[in-house]
Every structure is written in C-alpha cells, then in structure tokens.
C-alpha cells in the first residue's frame, strides 16, 4: 500500500516538474522578448514621438531605393509564387490627379498612428504601440487572424503566407503572423535612421523625433505645408507627406 502511495507521489512530483518545465518553455519566448526590447540599455520613452516627413516633390517615380533598402535590412527577400501574397513593408505609389493629370510619387508604409486601428482591433494585444510611437507586432502572441489587415486604412500590413528561411536575425518574421514596417526599430534603438531614409539619395525623407525642437523633422514640419493621409480618420499619423 505504502509502495503504491510512494509511486503515486513520485508520479505526481514528476508530473509537477514536467508541468513547471512546460510552463517555462511556454513563458520563455516572452522573457526573451522583454530582454530584446531592453537590449540597448534603455526602454522607449514617451517623451519621444518618432515620425517621418516625406516630400513627394523630391521623390522620383522611377526610384525605389527605399524599397530595396527595406528589403535588405529586414530580410524580405523570399521568393513568392503569387505576387499578391508577397510581403511589402514599403511600396512606391504613383498618383495621378484626376482633374489635372498632375503626377506624384511617394513611398507608403505603416503610418505609425498615435491611435492605430490595428492596435484597437487586435484580439490578443500582439499589435502594440511603443511609448515612442512606433507600432509593432509581437510575433510571440500574434495568432494570424488578420483583423489588423482589415482595419488598416493604409494597407500597410502583410501576412506571412509561407515558411521563411531568409530572416535577418534582428528582425523576427515567420509563417502565419502579420508584419509591417517597424521604422527599422533595430536601427533606431541604436541611434541610426531607418534603412529607407538612409537609402533615399533625393533627400525626400526626413526621420526624427516629432517632439524634439532641435530635430530636423520638428523644424521642417513647421516650415512647410504637410498632410496626413486619411486625415479625416484623425489617427494622428507619425508619417506626414509634403507636396500632395
């Protein structure tokens, strides 16, 4: 009788150990994420609001250097048979004014809204906004429901339709999760500019802290007339456009 009790106790103890082990395995990715976020030694500050000013007058319709730089930096180099299933974190849009025929060209990406609809609708909170205004997807808890893709007024998000093997170690991507422009957060946290901005030789993109009076973007946005795309939605976008 006591033997059987001991056996049962042993079994229960082993089960508890296994359960704890499994629990750790389940939680561990989350812990890693927190470590990664603070890897640069400081957390994102709410005093900062990162933004981007794009001058469509300087953006050439035949230039897509920003798109190429984004793909290289973020490892978006996979081959996809159906082009409609290909991820595009940044794309060039060519516009023609219907009444005048005037043309414009500009890059479009996640607008890093202050009130992002993707964050509102995400059932698990995987879509989130950092304190400094950068909108990201936590790929540990994204379940791939694509509600955020339905809700984004800028069609800025892409879905991981297939398994990937060409990721940049600093930029987590994968099958079954939604992804979008991160403002190259891995670079920004190191004090660098996003890859697209650095690649733009026409000077059409200014990146910086919208709250910092000493930043170029802060000054420029007060000198020129700029607009937010779908300003009617009052999402307070971090990306502004000049010249359209």
């Amino acid at each position, binding site marked *: 009788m006591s033997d059987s009790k001991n056996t049962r106790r042993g079994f229960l103890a082993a089960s508890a150990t296994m359960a704890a082990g499994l629990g750790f395995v389940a939680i561990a990715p989350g812990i890693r994420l927190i470590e990664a976020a603070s890897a640069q030694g400081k957390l994102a500050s709410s005093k900062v609001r990162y933004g981007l000013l794009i001058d469509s007058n300087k953006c050439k319709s035949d230039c897509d250097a920003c798109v190429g730089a984004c793909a290289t930096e973020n490892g978006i180099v996979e081959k996809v048979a159906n082009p*409609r299933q290909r991820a595009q974190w940044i794309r060039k*849009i060519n516009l023609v004014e219907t009444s005048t025929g005037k043309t414009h060209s500009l890059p479009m990406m996640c607008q890093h809204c202050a009130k992002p*609809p993707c964050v509102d*609708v*995400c*059932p698990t909170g995987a879509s989130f906004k950092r304190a400094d205004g950068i909108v990201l997807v936590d790929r540990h808890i994204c379940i791939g429901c*694509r509600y955020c893709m*339905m809700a984004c007024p800028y069609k800025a*998000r892409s*879905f991981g339709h297939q398994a990937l093997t060409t990721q940049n170690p600093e930029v987590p991507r994968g099958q079954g999760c939604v992804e979008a422009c991160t403002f190259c957060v891995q670079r920004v946290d190191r004090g660098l500019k996003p890859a697209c901005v650095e690649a733009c030789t026409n000077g059409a993109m200014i990146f910086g802290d919208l709250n910092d009076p000493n930043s170029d973007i802060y000054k420029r946005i007060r000198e020129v007339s700029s607009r937010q795309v779908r300003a009617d939605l009052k999402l307070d976008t971090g990306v502004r456009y000049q010249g359209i």
Partner: protein
Amino acid sequence: MFTPNFRYKEGPAFYLLVAAGGLVAALGVAAAYYMEHMGHIVTNMTNQIPWALPHVFAIFLIISASGVMMVASIGTLFGKNVYKPRARLACLLAIALLAAGLSVIMLDLGRADRLPVALTHLNPTSEFGLNIIFYPTFLTLTSLYLWTLMEPRMNRYSKTVDLANLIWRLMLTTGTGSIFGFIVARQAYGTAVLAPMFIISSFAWGLAIFLIMQRVLYGWSNMTLDLAVLKRMKNLLGIYIGAVFYFVSVYHLTSEYYAKQGDFEHFILIGGGIFPMLYWGGFVLLGTLLPLLLIFHPRIWPKPGAVTTAAVLVIGGALCHLYVLIVGGQAFPMEMFPGMTATSSFYDGAIEHYVPSLPEILLSIGGFGIVFTIAIIGARVLNVLPQDDIAQLKASGSLTD
C-alpha cells in the same frame, strides 16, 4: 402521434448520417491541417483579400447559432405554444453551429496552435477579443437553458435563463456585426446599420437551418410534421426574409446617398462582375424572392418540400450576401487619395479578383459537416426531437391563424 418518451430506433440510418457529416467535417479538418502545414500560400487569400471564404462560412454559422435560439425564445419567453417543443432542438443546433463556426475561424488562423494565447490575452477594445467572452458565455447559457428544459426540477428557471441568453445573444450578434461596423478603413464597412442587419439576419438564417434539420430528423424518424405547425413556422421565415431584405436595402441605399460611396455601390451592385451577380442573382432572386414565392404563393402551399427548398435557398442567399459584403468589400480598392488614381506593386487602386482554393472550400463546407454531425449525434443521445400534441394545441387555440 405524441410520444413523450420517444427514442430513436437503432438502425443504419444513424450511422450513415453520422458518416456523411463526419466525412465532410474530416475533409475540412484535413484541409485546415494542409493549410497549417504549408501556410496560407496554398490558399487564394492574399495581402489584398486577407479574409475570404472561410470567414464567410464562419460568420454565417456563428450568426445562425445566435439566431436559431429565437425558435426557443418564441416559445419560452413569448409564450407561443407551437414553438415550446422546439426549444431543445434549437439549443442543440445553436451549440453545433457555434462549435462549427468557431472551428472554421480558428482553423483558418495563421497560427491556429496559439489558441491558448487568444484565450489568455484579451484586448477589450477588440471585437474579436470580446468574442472570447461572448461565445463561451453564450455556450454556457444555452447549455444551462437546455438543462432547465430537460430537468423537470429546473423547469421553473427556464424563462429567466432564456431571458438572460436572449439579451446576451443580442449583444453577441451586435458584436459580430460590429467586427465590420467598426472598420473605418474600407468603404463597405464602418456603418452602424450592420449590427441590426446581422441580428435580423441571424433570425432568418437560424430558422432556415432549424426547418431543414427538423425535416431531416422527422424523415429519419418516419414522422410527419403537422402542416398547421409548419405553416406558422414558414410564415415567420417569410417575415424574417422580408426584414433582412429591408435592412440590406437600407444599407445599400444609405451608402449610395453619400457621393463618396457612389463608386463602391456601383461596383457592388452593377459593374463588379461576380459581386453584382451574387447580389442580384444569389441574394435577391434565389435567396429572397424565390423563397418568398415558395412560402406565400397559395398554389404552392401546402407542400412541405417547398418550405425546405425555401430554407435551403435562404441559406444560399445568405452566403452570397456575406460573400459580397466580406470579399466584395475588400475587392474594391481603398481610397487613400481622393481625387487621384493610384497604382503600385501592392495593387493600390486596383480591383482585386479572388477565387477560393480547394482547401478553403473544404474547410468552409467542413463547418456544415461539423454542424450536421453534432446535430445527428445530439439528436440520437438527447431527447430533442420536437413532438407536437396537435389536439392540445388546437384546443388551446395555438394553431389558429
């Protein structure tokens, strides 16, 4: 006719019905496994149309789950005696429909393996997030209500539980309608009329499913439904069909009124290829006018087959309507730059074309397989078959027009 302790006879019919439903469900699960393994690259869903056929079916099933319970409430809450014996079957169908709808939507997730994440992380501003509360509570209330119906000592609580469930269902379907109602990005959505439209649709679609399953179960049991009972139910279906058509018309007319929506309405109703075809041919003609004719034309009645046909057509029309709303709403390009035409490698400004792939079709239809299998097994093990005491109904005046 009235057999209070009715039980089904053992026979091959039960196993055949379960095998048929199980096969369709199994094909759906196999398709989901294939999609999970290979990724959504094997589907025709894209970055332009991220929600497609599985969402059409899943939303149909979930909405119908809420609506079918009206059959029960009409008896329990509103005191219509004809509907009282139908409450148990309504509960069973509601549970089956909800289980099927949730299965389809969960199996379509990019990371279906992260279901526990969805259950443990709740974003209260998300309609999807709130559904994590809405759906299990609906399931619990419906099960509780079924218990109050089946356990004589609990009978006295059935009205209270059903009232709570009715209120909860109205909230749930409002929430499901608001999944689209709160989307401001696209022209097709972002309107409050979607919530009441989904509620009235749920009544029609739920009743249609009930009528079909009632017919199947009666056929299986070699029983005949009294025509006076059927007449009341088919008349109610007719009223629901008219009400759905009213709300869908209001949705389009209000949208048409705003100049900025004109292009979208033209696309959906006239120039958009498959979408106007599905709207006018599928929803209006086959899903609304023809069922109304079958239900109300004096020369067609009394033919029980006509009512079942009408119910099947209502379901077909519902799927067409949801397809137009969900897929059509995404196929029309988002207008980011009013007054300008846009082109890009990401298909900005372009009308999207979508044809469902085989895995999507199998997963979607698999939902119906799940409903059917659960309903047949449930009807076998539970005493849910509606049985009418016609003499008593006539004596109480419940069958007068």
